[in-house]
């Protein structure tokens, strides 16, 4: 009789068993903040389409301290999301050859973060300019 009886271990709670997986779940979880913020902006757009009064009511609603606190939290979460997104980027793309040498992972991550920061600042400056 065959004495083999391979034992399959449970995957229950797998992501809590390794700090790397915990971090993975956190950075994937920050995507929920990205989605929530997209929802807020869509809601604003909906109010805008309903005329000035609706738009102003939505703007007033944003001044609620809970909403402000949520924005701060979302900013941190989206910042972390951006960082981890560009951190994994070198692993997700074909090698970039510059001058016959492969571009280092750090350069790709750094470049991505720099572009993200520049784009955010440009957007902020544009909105700031429009709001004045």
């Amino acid at each position, binding site marked *: 009789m065959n004495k083999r009886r391979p034992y399959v271990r449970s*995957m229950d709670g797998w992501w809590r068993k390794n700090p790397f*997986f915990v971090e*993975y779940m956190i950075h994937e979880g920050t995507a929920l903040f990205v989605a929530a913020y997209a929802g807020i902006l869509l809601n604003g757009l909906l109010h805008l389409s309903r005329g000035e009064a609706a738009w102003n009511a939505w703007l007033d609603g944003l001044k609620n301290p809970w909403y402000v606190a949520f924005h701060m939290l979302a900013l941190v979460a989206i910042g972390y999301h951006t960082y981890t997104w560009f951190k994994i980027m070198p692993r997700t793309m*074909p090698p970039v050859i510059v001058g*016959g040498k492969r571009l280092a992972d750090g350069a790709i991550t750094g470049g991505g973060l720099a572009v993200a920061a520049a784009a955010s600042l440009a957007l902020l400056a544009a909105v700031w300019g429009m709001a004045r």
Partner: protein
Amino acid sequence: MAENQRTIEIEVLRYHPEKDKAPYQQVFQVPFTDDMSVLQGVQYIKDYLDGSLSFRWSCRMAICGSCGMMINGKPSLSCETFLRDYYPARVRVEALAHFPIERDLVINMEGFIEKLESIQPYIIPREARTLAQGEYLQTPEQLNVYEQFSSCINCMLCYAACPQFGLNPAFIGPGAMALLHRYNVDSRDGGKAERMELVASEEGVFHCTAVGYCSEVCPKHVDPANAVNQNKTNAAADYFLRFLAPKGGAK
């Protein structure tokens, strides 16, 4: 045993299918010196404390890929992981995660071997050449494209690091995909179309959620996550480009 000998506790996950219903922990007191690897610690247990302990090993120099174990929960080659780095704490040794345990630290690798065969890990010549025509020449640039992926030693640490493989063992997984990519991007190879069917299949690259731990634990810096993710792009390109340039033969 030389001077400066100390004693460390090694906790081993035991499982003997003929008598155990489930694996259990067993702690051994192992005398060790600074130059001893975890593998040597486990060998000490087998030689002096409990001869029934089973584990795989061969080269002792991180090239055969046999001695992979979970060491304090991290997939590692036990021959290049040192007891001194854990002392005075206890070191916990288990069979590679996500694989069925055959006995003690020995896993069942049949699934992996089948996957390895399925990717056709050999060059399928792009053009037939006779001996008289000489060898297939390759430039250093052409070598660079695949060389990193050819360093895989089939140690399966990346599988033990991949929760998606743990959740769905049918996933082809990082190691086999890295080797698949190694042949697909070789300028001498002409088997890409056949292998791409596997890449884009149900068991293929889209199981990957870019956790990236496979590349972290790879002892040979193969970066299997990169191979998997490059092939997500390749599979997507194949899917959309077929409308523009039908190649026929698609299933």
